[in-house]
């Protein structure tokens, strides 16, 4: 069958999108070739849809329909409105790195990082450094996925962070994605490399400046965690309610290392967070948690692949969804245990709380186990708020909304409590509270 006959109109539109964006995409030579190859892959396959197994519950041809045109580089007005969003959403002592409409904004970012940290803009590296050596910034993606291909082709900028051997950072690194324009798309690619023995915290926020609507945020982040290193990773997706957020994290965990991750999605009309986490060294542990807080007609998808490629690693996934109105939450969790990966311990527990009859939760656990001496388990529950608990709280003076809010916080608490640092946990709880407050 001729594929072109099936989707000629969309493919043409997509090719025009790339052609129109080309001059604004940094990098030449091998970088440019990598972009073209990635784009061809995307154009050939198109937006993922329900017949692609990994996207079965999140059909982007229906939900997204098309890729919006590339956002213009931010002007002074955009930067001013982004500055307000930074004030509203960034708390604490984090080292801020701000991307406005997909472009690094040094004037909104902190200037001097801690000793042992090198921070650069992806665009600068692609344009100015040894281009041949830097092409891998766009091509080192361990996973094959159309949306990663699109991101590779279109990434305008991002943050590249290197943390030196044994450096123990005291302040979180906070990448803030701010959309200021409506009906456009931003594409970002960031990288964080933790050298052996390093410890760091990375926070990523996705927010809208006032008035930004119906935009698309396409992001991917590549995280390398060296041997004996530890990364605490927190993502907060608080995009505008009519926006889309399609994000990927590609994580490689070295030996005797720890990766502790939490994604909280409360914003965006359509969102997908896909995490591909691979153990490349023995004796490591990953906590990969997620929370979806959705109402209205929001659709939020968290898809995780934990790849136990080596023996003696453990992973634990805790996912919580709280759904009201006609919201739709998707959790797909795959645990792969490779033939050599003996003594793997992989756990996955997902629970959904439905606050309305119209809400929907889909859970798809998958275990692919090729080793014989492993311990893996998964569980899933879906339910409503317990009436007897609600009554107890109301009999003590809490209104229905207050009682619900307290029980919802308790419900998601199990996923959030893995964030060990009190201050950072408060930042996460703050995002959950904003969602609860917006419910009224």
């Amino acid at each position, binding site marked *: 069958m001729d594929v072109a006959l099936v989707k000629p109109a969309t493919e043409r539109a997509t090719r025009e999108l790339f052609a129109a964006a080309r001059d604004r995409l940094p990098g030449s030579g091998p970088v440019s070739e990598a972009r073209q190859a990635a784009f061809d892959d995307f154009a050939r396959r198109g937006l993922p849809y329900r017949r692609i197994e990994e996207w079965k519950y999140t059909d982007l041809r229906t939900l997204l329909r098309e890729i919006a045109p590339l956002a213009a580089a931010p002007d002074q007005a955009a930067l001013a409105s982004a500055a307000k969003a930074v004030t509203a959403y960034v708390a604490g002592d984090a080292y801020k790195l701000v991307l406005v409409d997909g472009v690094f904004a040094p004037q909104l970012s902190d200037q001097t990082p801690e000793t042992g940290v090198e921070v650069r803009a992806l665009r600068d590296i692609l344009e100015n450094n040894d281009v041949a050596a830097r092409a891998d910034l766009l091509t080192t993606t361990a996973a094959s996925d159309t949306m990663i291909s699109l991101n590779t082709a279109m990434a305008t900028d991002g943050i590249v962070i290197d943390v030196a051997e044994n450096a123990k950072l005291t302040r979180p690194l906070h990448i803030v994605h701010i959309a200021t324009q409506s009906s456009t798309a931003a594409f970002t690619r960031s990288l964080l490399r933790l050298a052996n023995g390093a410890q760091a915290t990375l926070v990523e926020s996705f927010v809208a400046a006032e008035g930004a609507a119906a935009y698309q945020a396409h992001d991917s982040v590549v995280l390398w965690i060296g041997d004996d290193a530890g990364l605490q990773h927190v993502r907060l997706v608080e995009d505008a309610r009519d926006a889309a957020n399609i994000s990927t994290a590609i994580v490689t965990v070295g030996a005797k290392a720890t990766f502790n991750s939490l994604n909280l999605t409360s914003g965006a009309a359509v969102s997908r967070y896909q995490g591909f986490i691979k153990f490349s060294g023995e004796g490591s542990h990953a906590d990969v948690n997620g929370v979806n807080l959705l109402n209205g007609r929001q659709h939020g998808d968290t898809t995780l692949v934990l790849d136990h490629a080596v023996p003696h690693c453990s992973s634990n996934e805790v996912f919580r969804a709280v759904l009201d109105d006609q919201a739709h939450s998707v959790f797909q969790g795959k645990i792969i245990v490779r033939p050599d990966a003996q003594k793997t311990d992989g756990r996955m527990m997902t629970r959904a709380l439905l606050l309305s009859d119209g809400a929907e939760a889909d859970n798809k656990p998958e275990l692919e186990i090729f080793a014989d001496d492993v311990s893996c388990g998964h569980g899933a529950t879906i339910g409503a708020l317990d009436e007897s608990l609600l009554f107890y709280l*109301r009999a*003590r*003076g809490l209104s229905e909304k207050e009682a619900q809010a*307290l*029980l919802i916080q308790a*419900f998601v608490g199990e996923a959030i409590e893995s964030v060990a640092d009190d201050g950072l946990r408060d930042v996460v709880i703050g995002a959950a509270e904003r969602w609860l407050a917006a419910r009224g």
Partner: protein
Amino acid sequence: MPLLEVKDLQVRVEEREILHGLSLTVNKGEVHAIMGPNGSGKSTLSHVIAGKPGYEVTGGQILFKGEDLLEMEPDERAAKGVFLAFQYPVEIPGVATMTFLRTALNAQRKARGESEYSTPNFLKKVREVAASLNIPQDMLRRGINVGFSGGEKKRNEVLQMALFEPSLCILDEMDSGLDIDALRVAADGVNALRSPDRAMVVITHYQRLLNYIVPDVVHVMSKGRVVKSGNKDLALELEASGYAQFEEA
């Protein structure tokens, strides 16, 4: 005006009538005991007064300080001064007891148009009350009733009663699941809260509890009605003769 007036109350649960015209009047400062066999409707009465969903009131009235209680949401009733000490206090993991107490107290104060407690004042008050009930501080940091023994759960109910200072306390089978020492501690806590401005309704199957919380009035319930009322001696009489004489009624 009586504090609580229950007039000819008829209540159904899923098509089955549980209370068939129950009347009860409680004045400020009084302690009433409601006794009766299992299934006589004692707990139903306490639930309907507190506003638990699932009960259909098909007739009668409940007035609290002259206001129609049945028109109010459970949280409005709490703010007006109705407190139900649960027979089986629920466990709520993930909600720290201290957080819950502060949220509840301030919600009630806000509903009454009073200013919210500041954190230091609140903590001071809770610590005082907890100390008087032998409730250790670490219990307050745990999830509500999580890992509490039966006695600790009941003490936690008394703690809330002391903190919220309600004008009507309904104690639903406070003695169930308690050994004699735990019962004494809980009863001492309740007795300390007796006051001319406050009334208590003690619901119990056994007379034993009334040795510790001595009532002014004793009512016997059977088949959804109060069939006999008297002074504290009625409880002793019941202990000797049992409920059988009322089952016929």
